[in-house]
């Protein structure tokens, strides 16, 4: 009879999976959260977990995050490790969360069960972040993320830290920048079109932009979401052309950004493009467009050459090391991840402990800045508020010049001037 066999096969399969899963790290953790390694038995190796999608649709950004983290670990170890803990070296537990939130839960669960990590770094994507942060909260391991959704710090969690600007701030910065341009260059641009892809990133950053624009006296002639990964930007661009927009605020990842830009050229329209970050900032579009990328403007959550970085030799040196090692400039995904690792290292130095809760307390209480890597975040300092958000951070505007994005606004962070002449 089938039932008997079914259950036999069933139990056999369970045992098989148990064996396999067990083999992957059979350390029976008493309570992974309470991992306490005091100075009394200083560890030789301290593990930090890296959580990001390295497969699926978000993999290209995930790789940027990974590169940032790897370099940070190298830098800390090359400088002697955590001296307060006897020179303990950092090591990385790389966890590919996949781009699917439910698989992410399983994968993160696995890492937390089988490895004793003191902190988690990443992810850069809101939906993955939201699905895994409950696990870190439950296990009392601090996690620092560079996803931008506002919801991340609305959960009331104590162990979650977001160092990057919130999505809702991007629209504000774009509009302010336009106002600044209008004033500086006497442009009188009033008609704006806001288009965004219906991904988590697109929705987060464009929410409220319409009201912000209207309040700034701009005329929103088009406000459209479009399906992420669409095959044809013609309809969108036709709508933009029809609306006679002078300025375009697009929010897209790489593929769509390319499509939109090329299609606008085909349709012979050239509104001033003030990109919404993501695809407009990453190396792929630079490679794709070659010299034609110069002049492209976008908002970004972070940039490698903001004044707070270029004016501090230790910080600038880190960005240079990154570029030398990986062959591309330190992106808005890589930078914050790098900084997070350094900040965790600092926490362990200052508290002389690798206890996750003590690390968390240090992160929550400290005002980072100056020459330490908390100063990576513009405007040169970082302090996490009681909800876990770095309240002093704000987005910056960049413009591609000489094949790299340069910070052009706000003035306090700018290291390059806007060049409108190269806009074609």
């Amino acid at each position, binding site marked *: *009879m*089938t*039932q*008997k*066999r*079914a*259950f*036999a*096969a*069933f*139990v056999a*399969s*369970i045992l*098989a*999976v*148990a064996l*396999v*899963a*067990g083999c992957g790290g059979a350390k*029976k953790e008493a309570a992974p959260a309470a991992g306490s390694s005091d100075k009394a038995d200083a560890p030789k190796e301290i593990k930090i977990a890296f959580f990001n999608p*390295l*497969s*699926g649709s978000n*993999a290209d950004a995930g790789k940027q995050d990974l590169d940032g983290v790897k370099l940070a670990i190298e830098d800390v170890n090359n400088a002697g490790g955590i001296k307060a803990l006897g020179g303990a070296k950092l090591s990385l537990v*790389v*966890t*590919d969360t*996949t781009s*699917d*939130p*439910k*698989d992410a*839960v*399983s*994968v993160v*669960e*696995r890492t*937390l*069960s*089988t490895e004793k990590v003191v902190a988690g770094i990443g992810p850069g994507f*809101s*939906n993955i972040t*939201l*699905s895994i942060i*409950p696990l870190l*909260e*439950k296990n009392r391991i601090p996690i620092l993320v560079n996803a931008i959704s506002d*919801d991340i710090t609305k*959960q*009331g*969690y104590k162990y979650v830290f977001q160092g990057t600007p919130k999505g809702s701030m991007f629209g504000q910065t774009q509009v302010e920048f336009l106002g600044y341009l209008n004033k500086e260059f006497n442009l009188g641009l009033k008609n704006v079109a806001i288009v965004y892809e*219906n*991904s*988590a990133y*697109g*929705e*987060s950053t464009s929410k409220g932009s319409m009201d912000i624009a209207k309040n700034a006296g701009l005329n929103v002639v088009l406000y459209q*979401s479009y*399906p*992420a990964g669409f095959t044809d930007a013609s309809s969108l661009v036709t709508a933009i052309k029809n609306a006679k927009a002078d300025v375009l605020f697009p929010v897209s990842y790489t593929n769509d950004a390319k499509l939109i830009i090329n299609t606008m050229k085909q349709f012979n329209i050239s509104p001033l493009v003030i990109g919404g970050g993501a695809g407009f900032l990453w190396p792929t579009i630079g490679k794709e467009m070659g010299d034609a990328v110069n002049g492209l403007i976008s908002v970004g959550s972070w940039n490698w050459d903001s004044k707070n970085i270029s004016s501090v030799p230790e910080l600038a040196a880190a960005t240079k090391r990154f570029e030398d090692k990986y062959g591309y400039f330190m992106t808005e995904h890589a930078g914050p991840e790098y900084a997070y690792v350094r900040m965790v290292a600092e926490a362990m130095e200052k508290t002389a402990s690798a206890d996750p809760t003590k690390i968390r307390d240090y992160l929550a209480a400290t005002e980072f800045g100056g020459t330490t890597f908390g100063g990576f975040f513009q405007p040169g300092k970082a302090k996490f508020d009681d909800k876990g958000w770095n309240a002093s951070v704000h987005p910056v505007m960049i413009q591609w010049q000489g094949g790299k994005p340069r910070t052009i606004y706000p003035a306090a962070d700018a290291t390059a001037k806007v060049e409108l002449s190269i806009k074609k």
Partner: protein
Amino acid sequence: MLARYGKLGVVAVLLAAAASVPLFTDQQYLLNVLTMIFLFSALGIAWNFIGGYAAQLSLGHAVFLAIGAYTTIILFTRYHVTPLVGMFVGAVLAVAASVIIGYPCFRLRGPYFTLSTIAFGEILRILLLHYGNFTGGANGLNIPYRGEQPWNLQFDSKASYYWIMLAVLVLFYVLGKVITTSRIGMYLQAIRDDQDAAESLGVKTGNVKLTALMISAGLTGLLGAIYACIIGFVDPGSVASTTMSTQIALVAIVGGVGTLGGPIVGAAVVTGLTEVTNAWLGATRTGTSLTLYGALLMIIVLTRPAGLISLVDLIKWPKKSEKPTEPATEVTSR
């Protein structure tokens, strides 16, 4: 004696073994994997009511899962309705959706039916994305962790979810047995073998198929609610996608379409495969687990279309014998 009580006895022992696993380990990861296996087994059993017994290959079951999951989360996080109630609301809505979907789709056969289920799946996904104010759009909806709340199906340890899911699986299995041996089960069998012949014999195939779909949808909706509680997060891309629908169908197909034990084996194999490849190769060779899925599917179709559970048939089991002198014969049918 083994022959008389054996069957039930073996099942009981195995069940007890499964139930006691959390008592021997508190490795959350292992418990999570097993819970997901149980969940997908149950999903496969639910899918089989329409995909296996009625032989209508649905690649749109994520619709029902999503309806169950979203309903539960929305009722819980926005209106503070406990998931224990929300799950039934979700199930009812899923059943309602199945009527809307079934009615036009059942006019179609074979690949047309499958294509139409895909279309409905995509329609729901697009709607979930579009009406973001209500559904959270691409950002999805999540259940914030607020500690242990058993009455809301929120638990700290995966062990609780493990037992709940095991119990649900057993329930579904029993339900499946009841239905397949009932009259409607026979009608489904007739339709699977030859729909036109069944029709000519007086079986109201339309009604029977629709009933099967409604059962399948309601059960899947319930599971959607449980999924929402276990994972704590939904977004259109993960619960309402064709990928999810394919995973549900895959479990049943790999295990054995139209059998009760099949989905269990299928879920164990498919989930086991995913976990193994993610664990060993995840950070280095991405895409491996899915490539293996694809290969597995093709291999199963070409070599063992009855599914992996048919392999179990090849094992010689001691038969319950009325005539003790009869030699054990190799079983040839499921």
